[in-house]
Structure formats: C-alpha cells, structure tokens
C-alpha cells in the first residue's frame, strides 16, 4: 500500500464543491486504521464540472475519480485501496480504459497547465521534480545571453495572453533597449474579465511557474524589481504565491547574484488589487501600484520607457509568464509547432455558462469553436440549442452559433467582432437574451469606467439607458441606430482600452442578433423569455387547482379567483414581477 498515492484537488472551486471535507474524511480514515498510502494535495485539475476530484495512483496506473463526496471517499478507501478494486463507475479519467469524459482530455495539449493538478503547489520540490527552475538553471549554467533569451521568445511566436496579443519577445526587446538604474517587471494577475478563471487556476495550481517566468523575464530585460498585481478576490492564489516566493528566496532563485549570475539581483512582492477592472490596463495598474487612483494615462511614453516610478517597466499576463520556462527549456520550435501561422502555441480557455463540462482546457491555437464547445465541452446543458458564445468579456463580443466553425486564433476571432481576450468562453443557449447580455456588459463597463473621458463616462451610461428601456418594452424605432452611433463615438474618443472596446458587446449582438433587438423594440417581446417586463403571465385553467397562493403573494392584487376555483390575472394590474410564477406549485402560471 506504501506506493499508492491519493491526491485531492484543492483549488478554489474544488473547495467550494466540498473538497476539503473529502480530504479530511480520507485523512481521518487513513489515521484511524493507520493505513500506509500517501495522501497529497493538488490544485485545479481542470475538470471543474466533476469536482470534488480525487486521483488514486497505484501500481497499475492512475484513476481520476469525480463527483466524490465523503461517502464515496470512504467507498474508495474500502474498495480501491483495501480490496484493490477500482470503482470503475466513478472514474472520469484514466489511461487504462475508456471513460465518458475522454473527449474532454484527448485533444488537450498542456503547456501552461503542465503542472496544474499534478503537483502540490505549496511544495517547491514537486515543481522542481517536474522540470521546474530548470530553465533558469540552464540559462545560468550555459551563460545564455539576455539577447538570446529574448530571441528564443521572439522565435516561439508567443503573444501576450492578457488580451492584447502583443508579441512577448518584442515587448522584452523594447524593455531591454531602455537602459536605466532600476527596471521593473510586473505580472498582471488582475484577471478582470468576469467569467474567466484561467489565471486563478495557474496561480493556485502552479505559482512557481509564474515566478520562474518572471525571473527569466527579469534576467532578459535586466529588471531589478518584480511585482505581482493580484486581485483581492483570489485569497487562495495570494496565499500560495506568498508561500512560493518565500520558498524561491530560500532556494536562491530570488535574491542577490541569483544562481551565480553576477549582478543579477531580483526580488518579487505581491500587490493586492482593490477592486477596479480598469486597473488591468497597464498604465492604470502602475498608478495603482504607486498607491494612486487607478486612472489610465496617455501613451507614449509607454511603460517600456517610463512605467513604475518612471522607470522602464514590462508588464505580462500570468499565462504568458507561465509559458516562458517551458519555451526556454524545450526551445522555440517545439512551442511554435502548435498553433496557426500568426498565433503560435496553446491557449487556456475557461469554459462556463450553459455548457455541460465547464472547466479549464488548454488546446492548440486553431481549434474550432465547435470542437471546443461540443467535443471538449460536451455540448449544451439539458441539450438545449446553442445560441452564442461570449469571448473576450466586456471588451469582446458574442459569436453566434452559425459561426461555430470559426477557428480560434487572434485574427479569426477578431474578424467576428469579438476578441480572443484572456480566454473566457461563456456559452449561451436559447434561454439567454442577447439584449440582456449586452445590457449586463454595459452596466459593468459603465460602473468600471474611471471617468476620465467624457464619452466613456457618459456615453456608456446613455447606452445603458437605451438598452434598459429596450428590455422594458419602451424601445423606440431609432434606438438601434442611436446605439451604433454612440458606439462609434465612444470607440473614437476614449483614451484606454476599456472605453475603446466597451461597445463591442452591443455591436456584436446588433450585428448577429438584430431580429432579437427588433422583437423587443417593435413587438415588445423577449424571445428568450428573460426580460420580465415583456412577458405576459397567464393562468392555465387546466392546471390551476385554486390554491390561492398566487393571489396571496401578488404584490398588486392582480389575481382574482375564489378558493378551489381557477384563478385569473388582470393584465392591466400585473406588474410582471414573476412572483406568481415562482410561487405556484402546480406549474399553472404560463409565460408568453
């Protein structure tokens, strides 16, 4: 039994699904009977839809068990460990036999996520065993020059994963060109796109990969200080980063004359964000690190010339940095083998929304949206109709079902009017109203606008007002044109990316779902039955038992009917609050 390993996935979402309880249960059983197997922790394994996840590795191989609760955990110990009989029906992934979840795994190529779900992120040894810190050791050992490191990154074709897609190697080259006594490298871990969690999973699951990426970057551009700007909503990521930084210092990867490279002094500290989406923008982020209001400023000067404390500064995203050690270790050709002509390598996507298998996937660039959603993601929940996928968050747009064969690379996604963004994919079905989605994003950007530019500040507010009135049945014929006009003006007169891209969710929904806007405006109907004000509530006489619950709960007394008789809604008095629909236990309230 000594060589059996039991590994529990303890990422944020695993913990939310109850993984801590499962871990404690296994620990208690192990201690009670003095069992000799090894019990370990790891982080996000990627199959978030099967959380809590427990992997058991024995002499035959590895079995990943899904949907484990305390009871099932006890069964696993009993059967798999004590009786050596794996419980096949709980297995979601193994190389030993076919599982229904094999489609989720098969086409993935794990470079960024190479260690996520394999190692205990709180143990530096486990990172090192899997090739960690070997890239920086190689650079130090072989005295690879700064320019050669930069050239390798350029050759790999790696483009920034934070949304902009700027070639990382070139960015480093600019930062390297600017000579100064102090220089900074910043890791952007603000992950502002609401509906994306790639960076969180990497930070929680493999923090040393991000640190090593920063150390290599620091060497390449001669940075003297490093900052990780992490959003405060990710307490577990911050905790694990702190542990990792401490371990890296103890092991000589941070500090003075790192790995014997003369004069290479570098350390990293964490700056917690304070809840402002705009601080993901480079110049706003810098202002925030300096302790100010996070307002973007004009570029040039670019951060590469004058950034943090007016010193040359290079900012990279978490995922970008996590790729760096792999590229340096395996070479640029190996990385560039994956992907399309202009978008090399792999990309991590966070699948969420109305998709069957939501979680984290890493695929080569160039896979089609259809394959990601239907093959890996298993299609739409409850087998409803796929309507659209939102990519790029508040800066992106909705790609309709008929464009599902679009391949995923920077240029193809841009051509649809959405953007690749950081990798969030929120899937929508026929019950999602596209005007409601557009309104949701405008509400977000309107609140998050820093207020510096008039069009971004006031224009988004006007757009939100128009969208709100459309969803309330007060839309006017000219509203679509007004939205478009405002969109172009906001795009043209905004200083930073927030304003410049804020209209995208509206423009793409108008482009692809114009008839849905028209249904709201002309027919005062919401085809997806989401916009409450546009729905009609009626009692189905066949089903109504006359229980009076609806009438008692109706805030405007719009429902008539005697006890045990069919009830009736007076439409003139109904304010469409939906209460009767949720209260009726007999499914007798119909919505049209």
């Amino acid at each position, binding site marked *: 039994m000594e060589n059996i390993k039991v590994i529990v996935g303890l990422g*944020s979402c695993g913990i*939310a699904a109850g993984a801590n309880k499962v871990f404690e249960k296994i620990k208690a059983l192990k201690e009670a009977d003095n069992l000799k197997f090894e019990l370990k922790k790891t982080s996000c394994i990627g199959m978030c839809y099967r*959380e809590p996840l427990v992997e058991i590795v024995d002499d035959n191989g590895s079995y990943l068990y899904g949907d484990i609760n305390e009871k099932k955990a006890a069964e696993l110990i009993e059967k798999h460990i004590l009786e050596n009989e794996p419980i096949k029906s709980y297995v979601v992934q193994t190389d030993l036999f076919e599982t229904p979840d094999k489609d989720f795994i098969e086409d993935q190529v794990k470079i960024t996520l190479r260690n996520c779900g394999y190692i205990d992120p709180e143990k530096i040894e486990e990172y090192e065993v899997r090739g960690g810190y070997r890239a920086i050791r190689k650079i130090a050992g072989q005295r690879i020059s700064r320019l050669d490191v930069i050239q390798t990154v350029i050759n790999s074709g790696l483009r920034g994963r934070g949304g902009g897609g700027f070639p990382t190697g070139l960015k480093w080259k600019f930062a390297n060109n600017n000579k100064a006594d102090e220089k900074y490298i910043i890791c952007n871990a603000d992950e502002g796109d609401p509906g994306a969690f790639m960076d969180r999973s990497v930070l929680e699951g493999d923090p040393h990969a991000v640190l090593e990426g920063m150390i290599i970057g620091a060497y390449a551009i001669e940075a003297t200080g490093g900052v990780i700007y992490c959003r405060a909503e990710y307490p577990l990521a911050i905790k694990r980063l702190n542990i990792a930084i401490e371990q890296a210092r103890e092991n000589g990867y941070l500090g003075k004359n790192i790995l014997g490279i003369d004069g290479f002094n570098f350390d990293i500290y964490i700056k917690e964000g304070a809840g402002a989406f705009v601080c993901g923008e480079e110049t706003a982020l810098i202002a925030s*690190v300096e*302790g100010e*209001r996070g307002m973007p400023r004009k570029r040039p000067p670019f951060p590469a010339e004058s950034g943090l404390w007016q010193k040359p500064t290079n900012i990279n995203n978490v995922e970008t940095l996590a790729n760096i050690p792999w590229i340096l270790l395996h070479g640029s050709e190996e990385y560039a083998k994956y992907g399309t002509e202009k978008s090399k390598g792999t990309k991590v996507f966070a699948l969420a929304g109305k998709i069957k298998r*939501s979680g984290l996937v890493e695929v080569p660039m160039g896979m089609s949206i259809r394959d990601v959603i239907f093959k890996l993601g298993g299609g739409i929940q409850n087998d409803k109709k796929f309507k659209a996928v939102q990519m790029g968050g508040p800066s992106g747009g909705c790609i309709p079902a008929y464009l599902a064969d679009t391949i995923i690379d920077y240029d193809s996604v841009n051509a649809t009017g959405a953007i690749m963004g950081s990798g969030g994919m929120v899937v929508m079905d026929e019950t999602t109203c596209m005007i409601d989605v557009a309104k949701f994003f405008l509400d977000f950007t309107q609140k998050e606008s820093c*207020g510096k530019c008039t069009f971004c500040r006031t224009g988004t507010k006007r757009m939100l007002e128009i969208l709100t009135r459309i969803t309330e049945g007060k839309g006017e014929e000219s509203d679509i044109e007004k939205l478009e006009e405002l969109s172009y003006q906001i795009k043209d007169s905004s200083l930073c990316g927030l304003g410049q891209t804020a209209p995208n969710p509206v423009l793409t929904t108008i482009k692809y779902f114009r008839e849905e806007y028209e249904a709201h405006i002309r027919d005062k109907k919401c085809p997806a039955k989401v916009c409450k004000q546009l729905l009609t509530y009626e009692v189905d006489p066949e089903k109504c038992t006359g229980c009076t619950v609806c009438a008692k709960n109706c805030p405007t007394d719009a429902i008539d009917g005697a006890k045990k008789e069919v009830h009736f809604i007076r439409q003139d008095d109904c304010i469409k609050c939906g209460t009767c629909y949720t209260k009726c236990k007999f499914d007798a309230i119909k919505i049209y």
Partner: protein
Amino acid sequence: MRIARISGEKITKEQEQVDVNLLDSLIEKYKDKKGNLIPLLQGTQDIFGYIPREAFEKISSEAGIELSDMYGVVTFYAQFRLNPVGKHIIKVCHGTACHVQNANAITDALKELLKINDGETTEDGMFTLESVACLGCCSLAPVMMIDNDTHGKLTGGQAVKIIKNIKIKESN
C-alpha cells in the same frame, strides 16, 4: 461612473467607539514606504471592516498623507467601505457566467429574506449583502461567498437556507 458606487458615511447616533491605537503597528510598517496608501487602507479595513473617520485622521497626520488624497483613493476602489459592515459579508457573484445562470434570483431572494438592498447591512448588524464580479469559480455558477466560504450551483432557495443556518448557529 464610479461615483455611482460611493455610499457616503452615514452618521448614526451611537457611532461605535473606534480604537485607533490598533493602527499603530500598521502605520509604523508603511509610514515611509512609497506607494503605501492602498496597503495602509487595506490594513485599516482588515482591522475595522471599514475605514472609520478617526482612522483617516490618524493616518493622515502620522503618515503625512493628505485627507483628500485618501478620500479620492477610497472612493475609487470598490473594495473600500466608509460604513461598518455586518458580522457576515455575503458576496453574490454577478459575473458573466453567474449572470447567465440567473444570479439575480439569488440576490432577489436574499434581499427579501434580509429586508435590505444590495450594499446594505441588516439592522442587527449580522449581514451585509454585496455583489461582486466573478469569484473565479465560474464552473459552479451561480456562486456566492460568505466570509471565506464559497457556495456554488445555487438556487435562490438554497441561498436562503444557507443564511438561515448561519442565523440558527448565531442564536445558539
């Protein structure tokens, strides 16, 4: 407009006593560091749950930061609060994934249960209801976080049950 988020300080009669001496070590730690304003405010909020007027004054005089700069920063970032919060903070996620999975139903149910609006605190000081944009557990949408525990795949009814359980625990 970020201005829409600012809820100014509410003056209540029995303003609780704030022990500003708790701030001493924090101010000592950050006093002369550059870029110290946000960590100072975060530290203050960790201590009191919000940023009391007395703390503004003390930090301003001892760390030499203008009151107007402090107020400007506090009102810019969504994290900072000017009013005391409840014992338990409920954060309902309204990110994209949670929105399409009907996060509104959760906020609506909690508003009705607690008889407060988003951003407010119950009269007994037990709960504060807030909305946030994405807790990073989108695959479990819709999600809410109470203190440091995250709950996923919720319905309005389940959210209500969780709060009721906390209430029961508190009354014991």
